[in-house]
């Protein structure tokens, strides 16, 4: 973890003489003990340093990733320290640590294989080094808890003593991995390695960077997305105490001062003129019309799934249901606002920023400063929340490095205000979906249709081509719906209003399961069947959805008695390679105040690396989704976002936290994500319970727009 010591050490290094030349020599911030491989360093005193390449933003992967390495390494966990992989060494060693992104709930499932192999490979090298030292066959040597024993003679040595020799050996070609049922470290509720530093106030976030001679910047970006800076009257504020400079840039203006509060206060007094760029008249209503046109438009539409002929399927149905569902724009609202500290000096760029992808920040810093990748150092820090905002666009790094470049070689800390963070986000896209379903006489669906009209993150943010024009995120849960329905047609109308969209925790699964699973509930009611039995009947027994649905319903005691006035709702879906189900029990009084009695959340993520961490992620997901589904609503007026801070973009508080029970139902054989799936089934389960309690179908969020409040 990055702590106070690291900042001081690095800041002094900056002052040291840096050799000139095209590529600057690496300042090795890495420890100097023998490196067995890129992931494992063992010190003579038996301390084992396990490297972590991705980001820690509260999802706990810094610990669970190290558990996987330590498990195969057979080291003593109490002697393990986790250290970030250095991005400069990473670039110089041709991406020795692979993907550094903590996105898509893939931190563990995408790296579990090479992390375990790194642990096993290091263990083999240590065993061979010990065996050579004893002139004994390596087969007679075993490693356990950091100690190597030669069976026949009983001789022992420790990892630290043989690390020097082991580091010289060639890594083994093949390693065999343990069977998860034999795990001693992985799979256990190990305490998180970063919590002691958090609790003592030692941990450092991007906002905490502190460098000698550092100045501070606050910025204002064009309130209407896509607008540019026209003019600014710097003279108005240049006399204010502490103000150093006013920097007009293409799409923002920065005020630089000797502390951040003075920069921010001065910025408020700075007259700025923008050329809005044509979207200044857009509003939530005009955007809604764009989406509605997408629902009705016969052209400019692509087919995402087509099983059988829809018209015939619907024609043969005894009953046809139709409904439209809507989910709004949402902001990430990470508690740490966007920011970046940077210094550009003698062709070298140092950056401190809370990022979900240090490699992306590294590439952005190099491109912005116009220096080779080898001259950039992204210093790793903990994130005050990421939730997807810090994994895609690195806009805050571009700005931080631009301002640092304009300030000569003076270090600059850029920090956004909460207002700037709320009004210049990459929002969870809004989505308008029309669904139809034909039921046969016994109420089973024979045909299913969904038309999604929504923006495409992949087209607009990533500017990537789409296979057959289909954005997988926009149609997920519809195009891959698991129910046994003979005729399915899913269409996608891509509609991109001017509001920037990006990856928001759980992305498409934060909205589409709500729409699908509430509509399935409508079908169950029309069929006069129990919502749980109806789903169970339609889910092929072998599907993982079937398994987690049953486990969750059983844990919730689905068919059991309920106190008067308490009603249940249920939902199930795949998300991020895992399978989740939720049962909600709630009561609603005559003033529409919703008292959630109990929320039972089941997850099958294949393998569990740290059970306590999975439980924490499910509990956190409940708060994240309840906040979104009760109050989350980013609205547009005059081309800009109306919400600005936590007074008008409400966050759930402790007093509103319901009872959450988590059911871990790992079925093994695959690796599913954990950070995001937890949210996917919560909104539909609660809205289906609201239907059971009030008879009202909830077809759009947030609930506050339907007069509901949380108890």
């Amino acid at each position, binding site marked *: 973890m990055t702590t106070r010591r690291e900042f001081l050490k690095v800041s002094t290094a900056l002052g040291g003489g840096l050799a000139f030349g095209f590529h600057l020599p690496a300042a090795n911030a890495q420890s100097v003990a023998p490196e067995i491989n890129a992931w494992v360093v063992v010190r003579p005193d038996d301390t084992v340093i396990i490297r972590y390449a991705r980001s820690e933003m509260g999802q706990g992967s810094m610990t669970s990733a190290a558990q996987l390495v330590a498990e195969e390494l057979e080291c003593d966990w109490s002697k393990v320290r986790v250290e970030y992989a250095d991005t400069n060494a990473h*670039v110089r060693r*041709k*991406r020795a640590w692979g*993907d550094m*992104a903590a*996105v*898509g709930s*893939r931190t563990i499932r*995408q790296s579990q294989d090479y992390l375990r192999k790194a642990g096993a490979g290091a263990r083999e090298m240590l065993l061979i080094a010990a065996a050579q030292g004893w002139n004994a066959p390596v087969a007679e040597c075993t490693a356990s808890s950091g100690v190597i024993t030669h069976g026949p003679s009983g001789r022992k040595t420790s990892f630290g003593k043989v690390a020097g020799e082991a580091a010289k050996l060639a890594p083994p070609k093949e390693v065999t991995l343990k069977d998860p049922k034999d795990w001693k470290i992985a799979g256990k509720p190990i305490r998180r390695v970063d919590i002691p530093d958090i609790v003592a106030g030692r941990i450092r976030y991007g906002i905490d960077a502190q460098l000698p001679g550092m100045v501070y910047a606050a910025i204002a970006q064009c309130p209407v997305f896509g607008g540019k800076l026209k003019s600014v009257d710097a003279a108005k504020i240049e006399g204010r105490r502490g103000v150093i400079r006013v920097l007009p840039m293409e799409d923002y203006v920065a005020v630089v001062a000797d502390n951040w509060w003075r920069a921010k206060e001065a910025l408020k007094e700075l007259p700025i003129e923008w050329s809005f760029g044509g979207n200044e008249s857009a509003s939530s209503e005009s955007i809604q019309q764009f989406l509605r046109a997408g629902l009705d438009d016969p052209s400019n539409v692509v087919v995402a799934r087509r099983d059988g002929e829809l018209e015939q399927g619907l024609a043969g149905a005894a009953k046809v249901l139709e409904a439209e569902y809507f989910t709004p724009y949402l902001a990430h609202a990470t508690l740490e606002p966007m920011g970046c500290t940077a210094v550009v000096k003698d062709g070298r760029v140092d950056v401190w920023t809370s990022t979900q*992808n240090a*490699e*992306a920040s*590294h*590439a*952005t810093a*190099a*491109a912005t400063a116009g220096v080779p*990748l080898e001259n950039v150092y992204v210093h790793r820090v903990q994130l005050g929340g990421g939730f*997807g905002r810090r*994994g*895609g*666009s*690195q806009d805050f790094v571009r700005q931080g490095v631009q301002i640092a470049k304009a300030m000569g070689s003076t270090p600059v800390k850029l920090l956004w205000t909460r207002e700037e963070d709320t009004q210049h986000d990459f929002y969870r896209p809004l989505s308008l979906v029309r669904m139809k379903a034909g039921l046969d006489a016994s109420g089973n669906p024979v045909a299913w249709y969904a038309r999604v009209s929504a923006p495409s993150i*992949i087209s607009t*943010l*990533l*500017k*990537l*081509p789409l*296979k057959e024009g289909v954005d*997988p*995120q926009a149609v997920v849960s519809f195009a891959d719906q698991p129910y046994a329905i003979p005729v399915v047609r899913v269409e996608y109308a891509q509609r991109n209003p001017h509001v920037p969209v990006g*990856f928001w925790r759980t992305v498409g699964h934060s909205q589409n399961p709500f729409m699908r699973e509430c509509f399935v509930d409508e079908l169950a009611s029309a069929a006069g069947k129990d919502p749980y039995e109806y789903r169970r009947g339609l889910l092929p027994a072998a599907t993982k959805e079937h398994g987690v649905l049953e486990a969750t319903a059983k844990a919730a005691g689905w068919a059991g008695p309920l106190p008067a006035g308490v009603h249940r709702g249920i939902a199930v879906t795949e998300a991020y390679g895992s399978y989740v189900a939720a049962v909600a029990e709630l009561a609603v009084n005559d003033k529409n105040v919703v008292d959630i009695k109990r929320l039972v959340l089941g997850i099958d993520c294949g393998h569990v690396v740290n059970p306590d961490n999975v439980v924490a992620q499910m509990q956190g997901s409940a708060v994240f989704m309840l906040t979104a589904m009760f109050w989350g609503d980013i609205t547009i007026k005059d081309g800009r976002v109306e919400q600005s801070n936590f007074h008008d973009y409400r966050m759930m508080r402790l007093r509103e936290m319901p009872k959450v029970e988590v059911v871990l139902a790992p079925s093994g054989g695959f690796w599913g994500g954990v950070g995001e799936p937890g949210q996917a089934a919560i909104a539909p389960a609660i809205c289906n319970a609201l239907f059971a309690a009030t008879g009202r179908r909830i077809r759009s969020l947030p609930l506050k727009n339907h007069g509901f409040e949380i108890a």
Partner: protein
Amino acid sequence: MRRRSFLVVLLGLAFGARADPLLDPITKGAPVRQGRVKLEMPLLADNGNSVAMKVSVESPMTEADHVRAIHLVSERNPEARMASFHLGPRAGAAEIISRVRLAGSQRVVALAEMSDGSFWMGSASVVVTLSACVDEMLS
């Protein structure tokens, strides 16, 4: 043939050359040899919209021995053929700098066509970090 696995190496061909499905439209199956072509692109690109590219081919560029053309081929873009540059002896030097567009992380191949009809190639892999969040889903 899935585009992503274009690197299927059919060994059995003479002097280390290999046929390559992505390059066949240009080479018509002629052998392609590694070497003489240097394709320089950054290891990381923050986004794929505009990535620096420099390709240079060792050649005396004389009437008798020169580079006729350099082709840039993408492993993942919707249009595999990114560009073709036609040179000839009047060029004096076979070196082109431009900025290319990459639809996600991928490998780019520079294929040089010599005046004697031989083909040589060099390649570079670029990680586009912005699309790291969906690379797996879109591949």
